[in-house]
């Protein structure tokens, strides 16, 4: 059998005749899919940016009430983290590849997104952990200074609290690096392989 015969045999498979599509359920599924996608984005924004916005408001409120400058710093740290997330999300949303783009554009678009995600998680210390830690550190130092007469026990307690905060940050950092290794790196490799097969 030569290629033409094989192609003829291939094209004579009557594919469409075997499929019955329930249009109502398909439409319902499309709507559900879109709603699920929008809801996913919305709740992610609420979770990440909303928490930052709430904490900004809370620390600002306390800072104005108590006239404590480290609380202003903490509010500023939360505000900058939230703003960074929001700006990043806005820029990345513009770069989303559409399923109707060519395969190459789609793979390139996905690769850009995965690379950006890797960059974000690898640098989570600089844009997320450090600003919060600077704010918290300033607050702890200020409280320690104010309570310097209260005795060693209080100072030791606050130092312990600072250590717990430091450990928590280390945990968050490690968790992000684990996500990069476990999920994003293999995905990047797969996309790079796909792209190299198109080059």
């Amino acid at each position, binding site marked *: 059998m030569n*290629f033409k015969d094989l192609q003829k045999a*291939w094209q004579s498979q009557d594919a469409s005749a075997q499929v019955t599509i329930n249009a109502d359920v*398909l439409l*319902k599924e499309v709507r559900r899919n879109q709603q699920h996608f929008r809801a996913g984005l919305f709740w992610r924004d609420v979770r990440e940016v909303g928490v930052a916005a709430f904490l900004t408001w809370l620390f600002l409120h306390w800072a104005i009430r108590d006239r404590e400058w480290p609380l202003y710093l903490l509010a500023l740290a939360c505000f900058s983290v939230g703003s960074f997330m929001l700006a990043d999300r806005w820029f990345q949303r513009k770069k989303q590849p559409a399923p*109707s783009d060519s395969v190459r554009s*789609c793979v390139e678009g996905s690769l850009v997104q995965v690379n950006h995600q890797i960059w974000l998680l690898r640098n989570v210390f600089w844009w997320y952990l450090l600003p919060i830690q600077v704010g918290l550190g300033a607050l702890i130092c200020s409280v320690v200074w104010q309570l310097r007469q209260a005795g060693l026990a209080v100072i030791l307690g606050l130092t312990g609290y600072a250590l717990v905060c430091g450990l928590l940050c280390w945990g968050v950092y490690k968790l992000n690096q684990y996500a990069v290794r476990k999920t994003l790196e293999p995905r990047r490799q797969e996309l790079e392989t796909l792209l190299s097969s198109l080059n």
Partner: protein
Amino acid sequence: MLKVVRGCTAVPQDQDDLLQDILVQIWSSIPGFRGEAKETTWIYRVACNTAMAWRRGERRRREGHETFIKFSPSPQVQPSHLDSMPEQEAVVRLYAAIRQLPKVDASLALMHLDGLSYQEMADVLGISENYVGVKLNRIRKQLADQLKGASNEL
């Protein structure tokens, strides 16, 4: 679409899952169709992108979702439409061989067998027509190696 699905996976449940994903993506992408490409090319683009993303990601099961596709009797190759047994066998073996190819090559093989022009294939994949030709030569050779016995003149 069914050929793309069959070219991706041999597992009936996965075929069903992927076909539903492709249909949902096509339906969702219709508002973005500007008529710049032929409908077949556009559908192939969405189907290939969905198939590649589907194979890339976790296998999602549509638990709790309603099924909107019915196959009768099953989404496998239907021999009744093919003229003879050797042809049926050849097509079945061809599907198996296509599944062994890298993703991009499998997509090209499917489009080539479906009779798309070089320009259409280049448009779907976003590569040059020359490169389509180069790749197809390689793919034919690979398929011929895998189909030895069923085809000698690929």
